[in-house]
């Protein structure tokens, strides 16, 4: 499905009058560069994927031999499982909250850091610090304490006259506290933005400054277009990761997806079906539906990217 939609990176410009031998040498070279990936992708990815695709058409409890049941898992998922649909809604809510906020925060901090001269290293490290933690059990317990009844957030908000109570034990609010855990750990996209910002030639800004362009104008006409490949990368990857979100939800809800299934995101439900209930066939079917869904979203992103992602080697110079 993505095969038709994803655009491979642009190849070398048409080899004008290039010799065949040279072309073949390049072909051969490509496969040398690719060889580790080809082995890994075949043995460690393609093979297990094929197995899981097969399992998705079986009743497999991990202990006894899988039993072929055709599309039963899929029909059950779509027509008989209300919790499945709850997990879909929960995941979509999460994606809509977490992805834009995390990217916006990461980009804002990255751009701010770019114009900071003093203490750059300190800021970068400090902003990255939360991301060093992952979603360990310790951080889960801290999160639960902070977002509990009478916890720091509750105290702060009630001090301002907003009375929500604990977030982690309120069905409407719990998913927000999970999303905040992800947003809080915005270090990875921030670093990628930072590295991308470094790639923008300073001349562009200097020329713009000479022309008297405002900050906002520079941001819009230089930073955004020049950063667009990286922005696109972050968007695609954060989106994919958000659809697959597992650890923050698992950690904050202690693996249960509670309260009242309100943090039971897709992958957490998949894990619950596969490993707790030992319906590995059903879990595999869920995985493939997710793959197709993410593939579709990614394909759409790749398609729209033609309109707004700018690659240095597509045109000659500058980015006006």
């Amino acid at each position, binding site marked *: 499905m993505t*095969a*038709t939609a994803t*655009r*491979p*990176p642009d190849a*070398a*410009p048409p080899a004008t009058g290039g010799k065949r031998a040279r072309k073949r*040498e390049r*072909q051969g*070279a*490509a*496969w040398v*560069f690719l060889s*580790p*990936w080809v*082995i*890994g*992708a075949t043995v460690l*990815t393609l*093979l*297990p994927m094929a*197995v899981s695709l097969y399992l998705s058409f079986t009743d497999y409890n991990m202990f006894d031999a899988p039993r072929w049941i055709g599309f039963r898992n899929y029909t059950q998922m779509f027509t008989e499982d209300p919790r499945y649909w709850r997990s879909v809604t929960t995941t979509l809510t999460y994606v809509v909250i977490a992805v834009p906020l995390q990217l916006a925060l990461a980009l804002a901090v990255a751009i*701010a850091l770019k114009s*900071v*001269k*003093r203490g750059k*290293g300190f800021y970068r490290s400090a902003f990255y610090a939360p991301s*060093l933690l*992952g979603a*360990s*059990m310790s*951080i889960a*317990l*801290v*999160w639960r*304490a*902070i977002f509990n009844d*009478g*916890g*720091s957030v509750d105290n702060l908000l009630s001090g301002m006259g907003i009375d929500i109570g604990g977030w982690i034990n309120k069905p409407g609010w719990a998913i927000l506290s999970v999303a905040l855990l992800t947003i*809080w750990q915005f270090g990875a996209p921030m670093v990628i933005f930072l*590295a991308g910002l*470094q*790639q923008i*030639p*300073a001349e562009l*800004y200097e020329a713009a400054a000479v022309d008297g362009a405002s900050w906002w104008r520079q941001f819009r006409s230089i930073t955004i277009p020049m950063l667009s*490949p990286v922005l696109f990368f972050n968007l695609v*990857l954060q989106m*994919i990761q958000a*659809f*697959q979100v*597992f650890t923050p939800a698992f950690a904050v809800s202690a693996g249960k997806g509670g309260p009242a299934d309100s943090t039971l995101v897709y992958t957490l439900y998949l894990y619950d079906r596969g490993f707790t209930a030992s319906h*590995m066939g059903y879990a*595999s079917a869920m995985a*493939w539906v*997710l793959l197709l869904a993410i*593939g579709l979203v990614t394909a759409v992103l790749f398609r729209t990217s033609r309109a707004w992602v700018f*690659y240095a*080697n597509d045109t000659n110079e500058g980015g006006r």
Partner: protein
Amino acid sequence: MTTAPSTTPITAPGAARKRPAPARITLHICLIAVLLVMLYPLAWLVATSFKPADEVIASLRLLPSHFAWGNYSTALDGVNEVGVGRLLWNSLLIACGAVLGNVISCSLAAYAFARLRFRMRGPLFAFMIATIMLPHHAILIPQYIIFNQLGMVNTYWPMILPKFLATDAFFVFLIVQFMRGLPRELEEAARIDGCGPFRSFFSVILPLTRPALITTAIFTFIWTWNDFFTQLIYLFEPEKFTLTLALRSFVDASSQSAFGPMFAMSVFALLPIVLFFLAFQRFLVEGMAGSGLKG
């Protein structure tokens, strides 16, 4: 990594724009304000590691009533007669192996995808992206069976070998995106000088991709370090356990848990990743400095 002898620090792009002092100060104030909020949970984590057993969960106050240093001495004793030193070494071994693997294999694959022409490139690239999309829980068991067949269970290979085979498509994609941002003229020039694809990869492209490689190294280190589930599934002997695994040994639902020492060990386990990050983050600054892009 070979061509850039010019170590002269070059001011980061954009810094050339002079700003009035008040604006700079406002910026600093804003950044520090955001930081304070962000670091609060971390402060909580550290504070909790000093809390006595009855306050770790029950107390919703930041500071402990008195400092329980015992948490740290328990944590430093290690777990199951395996000392903290050993656990630390094991974690480092896995993380460093993974970093080496990812940096080498992902940059190779990325170069082919970004810069070379070969048959099936489109479909293969799409397939690579697709491999990021399948939740890894679904392929856990097939993968386990493969590693078991290879006799690699209870070794570090299941954590390291995949990295040498570029299975982290995330990083291949990351490096591809960076390489695509590099002007094509560079290689054209190299080709005119008679460089083949290998020479232009090693001496032109790779040095310029350094920010992406450093990024890959940092993320791989941290993510491998924190990857509890893979380590849990594949490691058997406590002597081979990592800090991340040992952390969880303090908590058991069927008996009494030791949350205090777990927090202490969390803080301890954080130190190596902090050091790793501090050591490498400054290389991100270099960026394109002296890369030839400027002139």
